[in-house]
C-alpha cells in the first residue's frame, strides 16, 4: 500500500520531534551518563505509591467521572488557591487530564477555529507548535533570548499580535531553558491580553521548582486575567510522577465545558490509579517535593559553576531542572556538540535545536541527576570542550 497517499497530509507534514532523533542515537548504549532526560531522578514518593497499591487491593479499577474524581478536584482547587492565589470551583472549573500535554491539546481544540493564530515562545517544550497545528491553528513563534535570561518580552509579543491572534501560550519556568518571568513583564503581557481580548494558556508545570527563595507568580493573578486564562498544571515534575500521566486544567466554566467535551470523547477519564496517586500527592503537599527542590537547587549550583568554569557561558536559571549553556564558543553547532559529546565522552545532552530554531548555539542539560554523575559528566564535558578548542 502506498501510505503517502493514504495518511493525513497535516500529520505527514508534522516534523518528528528532534528529541526522538537524538533518543535513537542514545538508546541501547549502557555506558552513557545522561543529562538528556526531562524528569526527576527519583521515583514517586513512597506514600503516593503505597496509596495506589492499597487502592488496587480494594479493587478501585473503574472509570471515573469525565471530570475526574471529585475529592481530587476539591484538593486541586485548594492547592491551586494556595499556590496561585486564585479560586476555581471544583464542580464547574476544573478538569483532570492525562498530563498537561492532553490539557493543552484540549484547550487548543476548544478555542481554535482554522486559521486562528497562537503566539508561543521558543525555545520551548516540543509539543507546542505541533499541538497548535493539529488543532488547525497557526503557530506564531516569538523567540526568547539569553540576554533576557529567556524571559518573554512583552514588546516582542506585541509585535506578533495580529487581528487573527486568539491565544498567547506561556510556559514558565520553561523547559528547556529554566527561564522564569519577572512579574513586571508578566504584567505587561497580561495587559496586552486584556487589551486585545486574547486567551492565555499558561503551562506552569515547573512552578514549585523555583530557587533562591523566589515565589511563583502566575499571569492569572493579574486584573482581568481569570476570565481569559486556562491554567495548566500537573503532578509530573514536583511530585516525580511523570509516568502516571496526570494533569489538570483550571478555566472559566464555559471553557472548561468545551474542553470536557473533547476529553470525554477521546479520553473518557484519566486512569483512576493515577487520580488516586494525585489525591495522596496533594495531601502530602510541599512535604512531597521540598527536599527534592532543595537538592535540585544544590545541583543547579554545581552545574552552573562548572559550565561557566569551562568557558561555556550559562546563566543561572531561576526554576525547573534544566540549564541551557551556550556552546557557540566551541565553534560547533548544537547538534555537532551533542553528537560529539555523546560519541567521544558518552555524555548525553539534548541539542537546543530540538526545542526550536532559537535553541541553536545551546544545549539542554538536565540536572535532576545524582550530584556525583553531574560532576563526572562535567569533567568529561570539560575534556571534550578543551579537545575541540585544541
Amino acid at each position, binding site marked *: 500500500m502506498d501510505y503517502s497517499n493514504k495518511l493525513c497530509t497535516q500529520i505527514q507534514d508534522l516534523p518528528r520531534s528532534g528529541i526522538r532523533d537524538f533518543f535513537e542515537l542514545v538508546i541501547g548504549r549502557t555506558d552513557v551518563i545522561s543529562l538528556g532526560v526531562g524528569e526527576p531522578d527519583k521515583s514517586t514518593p513512597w506514600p503516593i505509591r503505597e496509596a495506589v497499591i492499597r487502592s488496587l487491593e480494594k479493587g478501585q479499577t473503574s472509570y471515573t467521572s469525565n471530570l475526574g474524581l471529585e475529592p481530587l478536584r476539591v484538593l486541586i482547587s485548594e492547592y491551586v488557591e494556595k499556590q496561585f492565589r486564585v479560586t476555581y470551583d471544583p464542580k464547574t472549573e476544573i478538569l483532570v487530564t492525562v498530563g498537561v500535554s492532553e490539557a493543552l491539546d484540549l484547550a487548543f481544540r476548544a478555542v481554535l477555529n482554522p486559521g486562528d493564530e497562537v503566539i508561543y515562545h521558543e525555545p520551548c517544550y516540543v509539543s507546542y507548535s505541533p499541538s497548535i497545528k493539529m488543532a488547525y491553528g497557526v503557530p506564531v513563534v516569538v523567540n526568547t533570548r539569553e540576554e533576557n535570561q529567556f524571559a518573554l518580552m512583552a514588546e516582542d509579543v506585541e509585535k506578533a499580535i495580529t487581528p487573527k491572534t486568539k491565544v498567547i501560550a506561556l510556559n514558565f519556568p520553561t523547559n528547556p531553558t529554566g527561564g522564569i518571568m519577572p512579574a513586571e513583564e508578566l504584567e505587561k503581557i497580561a495587559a496586552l491580553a486584556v487589551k486585545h481580548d486574547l486567551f492565555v494558556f499558561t503551562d506552569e508545570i515547573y512552578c514549585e521548582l523555583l530557587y533562591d527563595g523566589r515565589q511563583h507568580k502566575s499571569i492569572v493573578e493579574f486584573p482581568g486575567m481569570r476570565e481569559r486564562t486556562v491554567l495548566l498544571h500537573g503532578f509530573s515534575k514536583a511530585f516525580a510522577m511523570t509516568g502516571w500521566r496526570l494533569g489538570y486544567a483550571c478555566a472559566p466554566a464555559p471553557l472548561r465545558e468545551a474542553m470536557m467535551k473533547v476529553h470525554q470523547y477521546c479520553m473518557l477519564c484519566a486512569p483512576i490509579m493515577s487520580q488516586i496517586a494525585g489525591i495522596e500527592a496533594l495531601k502530602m503537599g510541599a512535604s512531597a517535593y521540598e527536599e527534592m527542590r532543595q537538592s535540585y537547587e544544590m545541583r543547579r549550583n*554545581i552545574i552552573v559553576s*562548572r559550565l561557566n568554569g569551562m568557558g561555556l557561558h550559562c546563566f543561572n536559571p531561576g526554576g525547573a531542572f534544566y540549564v541551557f549553556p551556550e556552546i557557540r564558543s566551541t565553534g560547533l553547532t548544537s547538534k555537532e556538540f551533542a553528537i560529539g559529546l555523546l560519541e567521544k565522552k558518552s555524555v548525553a545532552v539534548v541539542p537546543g535545536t530540538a526545542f526550536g530554531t532559537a535553541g541553536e548555539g545551546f544545549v539542554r542539560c538536565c540536572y535532576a541527576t545524582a550530584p556525583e554523575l553531574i*560532576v563526572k559528566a562535567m569533567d568529561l564535558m570539560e575534556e571534550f570542550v578543551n579537545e575541540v578548542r585544541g
Partner: protein
Amino acid sequence: MDPLIQLLAINSNRSTAELAGILSLTEDEVRRRIAAAEADGTILGYNAVVDRQKAGHRGVTALVEVKITPEKEGGFDRLARRIAKFDQVRECFLMSGGYDLAILVEGKDLLDVANFIAEKLSTIGGVLSTATHFQLKAYKQAGFLANSNADEERLPVSP
C-alpha cells in the same frame, strides 16, 4: 540546619571541591567550617553504612531495653554515659515509655552478647533489668534500603 552539615549528614563522602561547588563557597571556607563542626562536636564522626550480611560479617546485634534508676543529681545521664562507653554499645538513647535506655549491642555471637549483658551491663549498680532482642535481618539502615533493586531506569533522553 547549616546546609553544609545537611549535605554531609546525607553523604559525608563528598569532596571539599564538590561541597564548595554546591554551596558556592571557597574550598578553604568549606574546610574551615567542617573543622569547626568537628571541633565543637556537631560532627561526631564518619562511617560508611555497610550491609553487614553482604560484607560477610558473622556477628550479631541486639537491641537491649534497659531499666535504670535515675539519680538525684543528673537523672539518667551519669549511668547512660557509663553504659555508652562500652565498645560493645554501638548506640545508646534515653527513651520515653516502658523502659529507660535503648542500646544497640554488637558481639561476635549470641554468647558474646549474653556475656556482656550478664557480666558487664546487669551488674552495674542502678541497672534494674534488661530485655534483649536479637536482630535477624536488616531491611533499612541509616536511611538506606538493604538489598533493594535500584529504581527503574529512566529513558536516556526524553522531552
